[in-house]
C-alpha cells in the first residue's frame, strides 16, 4: 500500500470511529428533541454518554490533524470552499458541548434543563447534517480545483444543492438510528426499552429510504460518483454487505437481540463511510486532486503513520480499561 493511501485510510478510519461513537452522541440528541418531557429518557441518555464524551469527539480532531499534516492539499481546498458548512458544524459542536457541560454539571432547575435540552437537540441536528453535506460536496466533485478556483468566488454552490442535502439527511438518520440501537442496551426499564427499540426500527427504515434518495440524486447530479458506487468491480459485494448489515440489524431489533443489533448497526455505518472512501479513490478531492497530489512529502507521511500507530498502542488498552472501569456495575 502506498503511503498516501495509508494516510487516506487513517483519515477515513478516524471518521468511522467518530461516527460509531460520537455519531451516537448526536443521534441521542435528536431523540431528546422528541423526549423533552420525559426525564427518564434524558437521564439514560446522559448517563450513557457522560464518561466517554470527550474521548469520542477527539476522533474528529484526529481526522482534521491527519488531514492537514498528511493531505494538506485536500485540507486547504476543503477549508476554503466549504467554509460555511464547516463553520455551522463548528458552532453546533460548541453549542452542543456547552449544553452538555451545563446539563451534566450545572443547575438542576426544570426551566434551565429544558432550555438547554432544546439547545442540545438543535445543535445535535445541525452538526451531523453539515458533516454529511461536507462529505457529499467533496465526493461529488463540487469543490473547485486550483485552476477553477481562480475563476470563481462562489462559496455556496459547492455545498447547497440536492445531493449534499440528501446525504446530510442520510447522516442524520444514520446517527439517530445508531443512538437508538445503542440506547436499547443502556436501560432495564421495559417501557423505555420499548420506546428506544421502536425508534431504532423507525430509524433503520428511514436510513434505508434516505440512502435510496441520495443514490438517485447522485445519479442526476454526480454521475461519476454514482457510476463508481454502482458500477465498479467491488460495488456488488459491497452493497450486499451493507444491506446485510442493515437488514441484520433490523432483524436483531425485531428479535430483541440488542448486543448483535449494536454490532450490525455500527458495521452498517462503517460500511457506508468505507463505501464513500472507495468511491472517491484515488482522489482526495474529486475530480482533479489525487491522494498523491494532495499529500505531504514521504518523510512526513511516515511520521504521521508512526504516530498514529504508536498512539493506538497507547490509547486502545487505556480506553479498554476505562470501559471496564465504567461499565462494571457495582
Amino acid at each position, binding site marked *: 500500500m502506498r503511503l498516501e493511501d495509508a494516510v487516506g485510510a487513517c483519515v477515513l478510519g478516524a471518521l468511522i470511529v467518530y461516527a460509531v461513537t460520537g455519531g451516537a452522541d448526536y443521534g441521542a440528541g435528536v431523540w431528546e428533541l422528541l423526549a423533552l418531557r420525559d426525564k427518564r429518557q434524558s437521564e439514560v441518555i446522559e448517563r450513557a454518554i457522560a464518561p466517554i464524551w470527550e474521548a469520542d469527539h477527539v476522533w474528529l480532531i484526529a481526522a482534521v490533524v491527519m488531514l492537514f*499534516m498528511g493531505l494538506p492539499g485536500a485540507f*486547504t481546498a476543503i477549508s476554503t470552499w466549504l467554509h460555511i458548512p464547516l463553520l455551522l458544524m463548528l458552532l453546533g459542536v460548541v453549542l452542543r458541548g456547552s449544553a452538555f457541560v451545563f446539563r451534566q454539571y450545572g443547575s438542576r432547575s426544570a426551566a434551565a434543563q429544558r432550555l438547554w435540552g432544546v439547545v442540545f437537540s438543535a445543535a445535535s441536528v445541525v452538526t451531523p447534517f453539515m458533516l454529511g453535506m461536507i462529505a457529499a460536496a467533496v465526493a461529488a466533485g463540487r469543490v473547485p480545483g486550483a485552476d477553477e478556483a481562480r475563476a470563481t468566488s462562489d462559496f455556496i454552490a459547492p455545498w447547497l444543492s440536492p445531493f449534499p442535502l440528501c446525504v446530510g439527511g442520510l447522516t442524520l438518520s444514520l446517527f439517530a438510528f445508531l443512538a437508538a440501537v445503542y440506547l436499547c442496551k443502556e436501560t432495564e426499564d421495559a417501557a423505555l426499552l420499548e420506546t428506544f427499540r421502536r425508534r431504532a426500527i423507525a430509524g433503520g427504515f428511514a436510513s434505508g429510504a434516505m440512502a435510496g434518495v441520495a443514490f438517485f440524486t447522485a445519479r442526476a447530479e454526480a454521475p461519476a460518483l454514482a457510476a463508481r458506487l454502482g458500477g465498479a468491480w467491488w460495488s456488488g459485494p459491497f452493497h450486499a454487505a451493507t444491506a446485510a448489515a442493515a437488514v441484520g440489524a433490523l432483524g436483531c431489533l425485531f428479535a430483541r437481540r440488542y448486543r448483535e443489533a449494536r454490532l450490525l448497526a455500527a458495521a452498517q455505518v462503517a460500511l457506508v463511510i468505507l463505501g464513500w472512501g472507495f468511491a472517491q479513490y484515488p482522489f482526495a478531492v474529486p475530480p482533479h486532486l489525487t491522494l498523491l497530489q494532495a499529500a505531504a512529502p514521504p518523510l512526513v507521511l511516515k511520521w504521521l503513520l508512526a504516530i498514529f500507530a504508536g498512539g493506538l498502542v497507547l490509547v486502545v488498552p487505556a480506553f479498554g480499561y476505562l470501559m471496564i472501569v465504567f461499565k462494571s456495575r457495582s
Partner: protein
Amino acid sequence: MSDLLAARAQMAFSLGFHIVFAVAGIAVPALMVLAEGRWLRHRHPVDLELAKRWSKGAAVLFAVGAISGTVLSFELGLLWPRFMAFAGPIIGMPFSLEGVAFFMEAICLGVYLYGWDRVSPRAHWLSGVGVLTSGTLSGAFVVTANAWMNTPAGFALAGGKPVDIRPLAALWNPAAPTEIVHMTLASFLSIGFLAAAIHAYRLLKRPSEFHRRAYTLSLSVGAAAALLQPFSGDFSARQVARNQPVKLAALEGQWETRRGAPLRLGGLPDDQGEITRYALEIPRGLSLLARHDANAEIAGLKSFPREDRPPVIVVHIAFQVMVACGTLLFAVSALAVLLAWRRRAALVEPWFLKLVALSGPLGVVALEAGWTVTEVGRQPWIIAHVVRVRDAVTPMPGLRYSLAAVVAVYALLSAVVFATLRSQVLGSRHAP
C-alpha cells in the same frame, strides 16, 4: 472591519479564551492530585473533599477546553488555509502528539471522575497523575508549534515553498525549550494564584477548614511557580534577543540601535516620532538582561523596515503589564515563603488574605499579556520572516459575521461555565 482584521480578531479571541481553560486543565489536576495524595497519607476527610471538588472543577474546565480547542483546530483551516498549506506538514507532528496526549488525558480523567469506588486508591491516584502528566505534555507539544512560528526550522525554501521538511527539527526549534518552560510555569502560576485568591476571599468571609486547606495548597503551587518564573523569563528574553531581535526591540520600546541599551520601565512608544517617552530608564539594563553583557549591541526598531515592524505600542505595554504582574506575584510569593518560615499563622491573617485575594487574579492578566507580547510581537509575520499574515488569510469574504457568531456563542459558553463552576466547586450555601 476588513476581512483580515476580522480573521485576526477572531483568532485572537479564540486563543485568549482557550488559554485560560487549557492552563486550568494542566494546573487543577495538580491541585487535585496533591490533595488526594495528602488524603492517602494523613486521612483528613477535608483533603478527600478537596480532591473531589477540584476534580469536578477539572471536569468542567477540561470539557470547555476541549470545545475551545476543537474550535481552534478548525479555525486554523477556516481562517488561515494558506498558512496551513505551507505549515501543515511541518508542524503536523506536534499537533498529532498533542492529540495523543489529550486522548490519554481524557481517558485518565474518565477513570478519575468515575472510578472513585471502582478502582483501588492507588490506581485512582495514579490516574490523577496520568491526567496531570498528559495535560502538561499536550500543552508542551502545542507550544512547540507556536514556537516554530516564531523561530521556523526544519525546512528549506524553494520558490516560496517549503522543501526538505524535517519534522523533528521543526518540533525542536530554537524557541521551543524556552517557550515550553515559561508556559508550563505560567500555567501553575496563574491558576494556582487564581484558586488561592478565590479561597482566600471565602476565608475572609468565614473561617472554614475546607477553604483553608484549599488556600494553602493552591498558594504553594502558585508561589513555587512564581518564584521560578523570572529565571525562565530571563532565558526566554535572551532567546528572543538572539532569534527575534525586532520583537525584543518592540517589547522594550528600543528605537535606536545601541551598545549598552537601557532597560525601560513603563513608557509610551510613539510610532510616528520613533521614540519612547515617559519611561524610567535603567542604564545598560537591556544589554545586561538580553545578552548578559552590559556593552552588548541591541538592534533598534529603526534598523528594520517599517513594514516589518510589529505594533510597538501594544507589544511594549503588554510586556510592561506582564512583567509588573509577574514581579508583584514574585514579591507576594517571597513574602509567603518568609511567613511560612517565621510565622505560619500570618498566612491566614486578614491582611495577607486580602493581599492574595487582590493580587491572585493578576496571574491570568500576566498570562494574556504575555501571549499578546509574543503573538502581536511576531506581526506582520505568521511564520517569522517567511510568510506574512495578510498572505495567509482565507479568500472567503464576510468574516465579520463569522467573528460575530463565534463571539456570541462563546459569550453563552462563558455564562454557562461561570454558573456551573460556581455551583460545582464552591458548593451550596451549606458548604463548609
